[in-house]
């Protein structure tokens, strides 16, 4: 067991520390810091998906009044490390995807930079390219591992034989679309060089990540790079890794010492320069006996990556852990295409990877004439099928049962096509899961002065509530009222914090704060003097070797469909989650509800349409790439079980930022089948598919 914190502030629904600043708009985001003197950069982007820049005419741009510099691969400062092709900005004439930076104009004002960028003339030697994901391509390959370092394939027994012999079989192909994170705050950086080094205001999920990557890329000591980001206007993974614009800002600032060079991606540019979720093609096979017990489970995934940099989404992962099955296979195959570089998006792996299997489970329930909740309960594993370890806690069944009670599942007629007031009405369920991740190294300091404890850690709050809940954890670990705790995050001037990713922030940063608080109390007790200070680092958790650690949940959806038009609405979403101890019910509920709302958006709306001829996303703005709006989400409710897990960390908490989006789209698709009798296996669920 980990040594638990005695809770007092933890579990209370404290209002966010940053609430006042956010509702007035005075919380400063990346490019809202009042730095001077400024310069504004506007990039020139490649118009071909693959090729070489053969000629570039910058004379007209340079002649515009107010232009300070025009950077190209010929004159840009050299980078020390170009091993990451996404970040090797303006270092060669090679073009690896449409939209890649090929030049940049820096000017005294944004309008001037944009005007001049439009005057740069670029000629290309265009090469043959491939931007079409084809699951039958002969060029698919198996990556060495999948994100971040999981095995590419797993095999247990002979699932093909077991599937062929199964009394009940489901063999279907499911598809999820290409998705873009689209945080509301565009990716943005201010960069500044002087004799001390590089300072960057960046919109990021990890200031220390940006620091280490920029230090490596520019070949300077990390101590000479400072990255600041107290507030992040959303990220959902896209700001968890460094993208090319941050390098471009630093590159341009190096060419213009003393200037704060600003790069803000436009919404359109974010569709090729800020990562995205790969489309997935999932071939799922379920074999079961007549009572619904799985004898075979196969999940063979095909995805895309970019030719210049590999990202292998781990979509097969949840199929390894969710259900008991006599035999099992999971595989990942990638197509390396001439497309923008994919990356993390909320619950990489789990989010797309629960769509196919959870719809297949619904199809199996229908084939077995079983309630889909009962089918899942019958396939509960007593140990993690992947690792063979017992679960530190697993309350999927509890979530399904409580969700069924709250949703009103019990009087559900399993037959589809119930009609109410001119709408076909249906309900559906799907399971959720997300692992308890931990990354090493997070460190916090606690300093006492003026009757306050100041906690410093280079963590990030992208809307999760970290500003607030880290203070609650510190208060309880210090055994003081939360009002006595001051928080400082979002700056590399504070100790190292791992990235806000993998729903690991509370585990990693909270664990570091608990370690620092214990060091502080052991040294100074209850009555520290001004200037008392202690540091603590997240310890290894030896329990991780002995237990499989995952959060679980159950999602329920009510869907209404117009029979004549196929218009589809999600009238109701209800989720119940088992995620250990909830540190702050207010911010936690917002995390769950927000994830579910994004899952609704994935189910019905989101679809990046990549034109294979140009290699570009054609619907690259918020008028054409639809995300759920206010009227699309009339009822989204989240609840949780009171789950005690003494093994995960001293707070007893599991990550909650991502599980809310896992399984939502499957629940909606299953409800859409129940409403219409039409099984949609390809997202998004649009009216044409329901009418077809």
């Amino acid at each position, binding site marked *: 067991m980990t040594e638990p914190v005695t809770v007092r502030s933890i579990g209370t629904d404290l209002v966010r520390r940053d609430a006042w600043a956010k509702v007035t708009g005075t919380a400063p985001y990346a490019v809202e810091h009042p730095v001077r003197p400024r310069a504004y950069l506007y990039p020139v982007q490649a118009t071909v998906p693959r090729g070489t820049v053969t000629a570039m005419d910058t004379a007209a741009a340079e002649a515009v009044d107010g232009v300070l510099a025009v950077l190209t691969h010929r004159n840009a400062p050299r980078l020390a490390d170009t091993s990451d092709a996404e970040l090797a900005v303006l270092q060669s004439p090679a073009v690896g995807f449409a939209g890649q930076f090929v030049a940049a104009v820096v000017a005294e004002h944004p309008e001037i930079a944009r005007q001049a960028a439009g005057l740069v003339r670029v000629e290309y030697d265009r090469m043959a390219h491939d931007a079409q994901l084809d699951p039958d391509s002969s060029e698919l390959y198996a990556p060495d591992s999948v994100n971040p370092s999981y095995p590419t394939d797993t095999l247990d027994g002979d699932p093909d034989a077991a599937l062929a012999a199964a009394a009940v079989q489901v063999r279907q192909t499911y598809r999820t679309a290409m998705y873009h994170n689209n945080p*509301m705050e565009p990716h943005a950086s201010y960069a500044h060089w002087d004799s001390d080094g590089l300072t960057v205001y960046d919109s990021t999920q990890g200031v220390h990540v940006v620091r280490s990557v920029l230090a490596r890329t520019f070949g300077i000591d990390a101590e000479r790079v400072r990255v600041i980001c107290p507030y992040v206007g959303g990220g959902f993974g896209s700001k968890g890794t460094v993208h090319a614009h941050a390098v471009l800002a630093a590159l341009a600032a190096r060419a213009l010492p003393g200037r704060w060079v600003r790069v803000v991606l436009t919404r359109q540019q974010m569709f090729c320069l800020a990562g995205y979720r790969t489309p997935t093609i999932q071939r799922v096979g379920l074999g079961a006996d007549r009572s619904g017990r799985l004898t075979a489970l196969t999940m063979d995934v095909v995805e895309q990556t970019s030719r210049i940099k590999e990202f292998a989404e781990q979509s097969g992962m949840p199929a390894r852990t969710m259900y008991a099955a006599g035999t099992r296979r999971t595989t990942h195959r990638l197509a390396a295409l001439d497309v923008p570089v994919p990356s993390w998006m909320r619950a990489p792996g789990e989010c797309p990877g629960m769509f196919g299997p959870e719809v297949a489970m619904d199809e199996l329930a229908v084939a077995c004439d079983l309630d889909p909740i009962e089918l899942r309960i019958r396939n509960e594993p007593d140990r993690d099928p992947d690792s063979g370890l017992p679960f530190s806690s697993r309350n999927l069944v509890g979530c399904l049962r409580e969700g069924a009670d709250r949703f009103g599942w019990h009087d559900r007629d399993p037959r589809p096509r119930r009609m109410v007031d001119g709408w076909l009405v249906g309900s559906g369920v799907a399971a959720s899961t997300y692992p308890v991740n931990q990354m090493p190294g997070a460190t916090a300091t606690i300093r006492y002065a003026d009757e306050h404890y100041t906690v410093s850690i280079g963590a990030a709050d992208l809307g999760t509530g970290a500003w607030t809940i880290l203070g609650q954890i510190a208060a309880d670990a210090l055994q003081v009222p939360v009002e006595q705790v001051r928080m400082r995050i979002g700056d590399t001037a504070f100790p190292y914090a791992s990235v806000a990713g993998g729903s690991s922030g509370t585990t990693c940063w909270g664990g570091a704060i608990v370690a620092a608080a214990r060091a502080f109390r052991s040294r100074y007790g209850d009555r520290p003097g001004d200037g008392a200070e202690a540091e603590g680092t997240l310890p290894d958790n030896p329990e991780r070797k002995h237990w499989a650690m995952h959060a679980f949940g159950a999602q329920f959806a009510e869907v209404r469909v117009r029979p004549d038009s196929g218009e589809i609405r999600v009238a109701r979403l209800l989720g119940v989650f088992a995620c250990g101890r909830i540190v702050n019910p207010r911010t936690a509920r917002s995390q769950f509800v927000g994830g579910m709302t994004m899952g609704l958006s994935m189910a019905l709306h989101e679809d990046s349409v990549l034109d294979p001829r140009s290699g570009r996303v054609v619907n690259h703005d918020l008028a054409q790439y639809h995300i759920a709006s*206010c009227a699309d989400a009339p009822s989204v409710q989240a609840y949780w079980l009171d789950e005690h897990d003494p093994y995960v960390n001293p707070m007893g908490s599991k990550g909650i930022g991502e599980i809310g989006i896992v399984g939502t789209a499957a629940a909606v698709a299953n409800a859409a089948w129940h409403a219409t009798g039409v099984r949609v296996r390809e997202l998004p669920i649009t009216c044409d598919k329901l009418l077809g």
Partner: protein
Amino acid sequence: METQIGLRVDGTRHTVRIDTRETLLDVLRERLGNTSPKKGCDHGQCGACTVLLDGRRVTTCLALAVSHDGAELTTAAGLASGAQLHPVQQAFVTHDAFQCGYCTPGQVCSAVGMLDEASRGWPSACTEPGELVRLSDAEIAERMSGNLCRCGAYVNIVAAIRQAAVDADAPDTP
């Protein structure tokens, strides 16, 4: 081309030289240093830049500054008076109607403008013809659908605005 315009922003008069290509949003953020309105899309598609312009909600990324000489603007920063939040802002805090906070100033301004529109009886797409406007959740959600929130705080936004609307209608208690 440059020119000079006058603006009154959150009660303060400004005379400012602008590039005639600049939007009101860019003038507010880059020239006047008021970053309360946010730039999310620059195309009028997300609503993050919403302010009250002469009392009406507008997306400032679609408004050329040069055509608004003399305008009176209120941003979310100006809705609060000192430490006292506007009732809509306080309701957003109470209902946790935001996460990352980037769309929030636009949501707040939009809600204030919307409540005024509803009080004047302006119908929306989901108002029954001939009926008086009653601010049901569906009415609020319909009228707020020009303000996107990627964190997915919509149900809390609706709850916050519903409370602000009810409180505004309630007779003052001593």
